[in-house]
């Protein structure tokens, strides 16, 4: 980065490696960090250092954690007979925020996407099968995304789990709350009709 001091140029070179950050944004961020107090800038540096130093993958569920096993795996109040399989950590966060699931998780670290070079061997599927074989798990919920790659991944895992004899389920799919029927696709409507549920008498 010519024209800048060495330190400023180095910082910009690092910032430009971040997703969605171009040269102009890197310059803006670098000058912002130059302006803020040393304390604030150091707090950012410490946060990045701590993130890299303290964050690891849980050896049981492959979720990101600061301890091994992670907080969820070591929580004795969680239901240890149900395992929810998700593609990535952000899915765990979304399900936890919904607050209705109290079982354990297994994070695949992706989904089968051969066009991107991601095959079953690149994921934590064999570790999942081993985990289920150990016993104690009665149900595995395959909560991969309901799209082509997510469905292929779920079906592949279901096949692999077949010999283990556990109940394998997939979350219900259909009309999202807050949507309008006229805007949703044919597939969503057909899924919603297939998975329709009875309204219990007297619930209105």
């Amino acid at each position, binding site marked *: 980065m010519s024209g800048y001091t060495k330190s400023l140029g180095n910082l910009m070179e690092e910032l430009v490696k971040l997703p969605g950050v171009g040269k102009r944004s890197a310059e803006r961020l670098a000058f912002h960090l130059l302006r803020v107090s040393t304390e604030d800038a150091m707090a950012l540096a410490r946060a990045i250092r701590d993130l890299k130093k303290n964050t690891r993958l849980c050896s049981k569920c492959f979720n990101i954690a600061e301890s091994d096993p992670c907080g969820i795996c070591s929580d004795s109040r969680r239901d240890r007979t149900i395992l929810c399989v998700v593609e990535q950590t952000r899915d765990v966060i979304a399900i936890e925020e919904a607050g209705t699931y109290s079982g354990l998780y297994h994070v695949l670290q992706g989904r*089968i996407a*051969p*066009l991107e*070079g991601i*095959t*079953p*061997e690149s994921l934590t599927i064999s570790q999942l099968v081993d985990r289920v074989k150990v016993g104690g798990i009665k149900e595995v919920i395959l909560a991969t995304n309901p*799209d*082509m*790659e997510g*469905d*292929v991944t779920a*079906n*592949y895992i279901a096949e692999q789990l077949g010999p283990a004899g556990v109940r394998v389920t997939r979350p219900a799919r259909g009309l*999202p709350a*807050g*949507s*309008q029927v006229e*805007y*949703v*696709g*044919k*597939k*969503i409507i057909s899924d919603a009709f297939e998975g329709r549920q009875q309204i219990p008498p007297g619930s209105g």
Partner: protein
Amino acid sequence: MAPLRKTQGFCIRRVDFSETSQVVTFYTRSEGLMRLVAKGSRRKKSATQGRIDLFACGEMVYIQKRPGTLNILAEFKPEELFDGLRHSLQQAYSAFYIAALLDRGTHEGQASAACYDFCVGMLETLASGARADVSRMVFEAHFLDELGVVPQVGRCVECSGALPGRGMVGYVVARGGPLCRECAPDDAWRVPVGALGVVEGLRRASPAAAGRISIAPKLRPFVRDILTRCMGHALELEPKMLQYLQEVRCD
């Protein structure tokens, strides 16, 4: 204002571009390969009826931008999702392989309605649960024809002399196919004449017939090898997907 255009297409690649948008690659009937921005496609109420899935096929309305700029997908109504592809890794991988070949072997603006119809037919066949390995070979033979590199049958590619009706013949991919005894170099790869006939049969087969074709076990490895070598030569690499397909034991 840039004109709105309409065509039929199916999605072969997608990348989430922002919290609400995607960059998608479609293989279309009237324009061939097309890369577009689907603004707002990840919103629940979008003109594309939600996130665009791989192989979602239907009518698309787009704003054509100047060459070198991404077109904008204004509307997309998926009519077919080829659900059957999701049920088996072999069927899905074969469809991904078709997508990879289209992405690698065709160019924007290089339209072929016949190739588009064949691809849609092939996806239907795979989704119906037809044998993935033979279906894929039918597609490969057809696609090689589309690329202009389908192996010649019956005549030597050098001297146009007739090839023997049986036995083995020399085959040099870089020279365009089979060679007679006089033209073939001593170290040429040798294939049974019958395998060339099978490749020709695969090229002529319709997508619907793909699931009913059977290939003699002794010719099968040669047919597979001819298609792989020709594809590698035409696309200047061995398709990465073939490696995955072998891993899931499609062949």
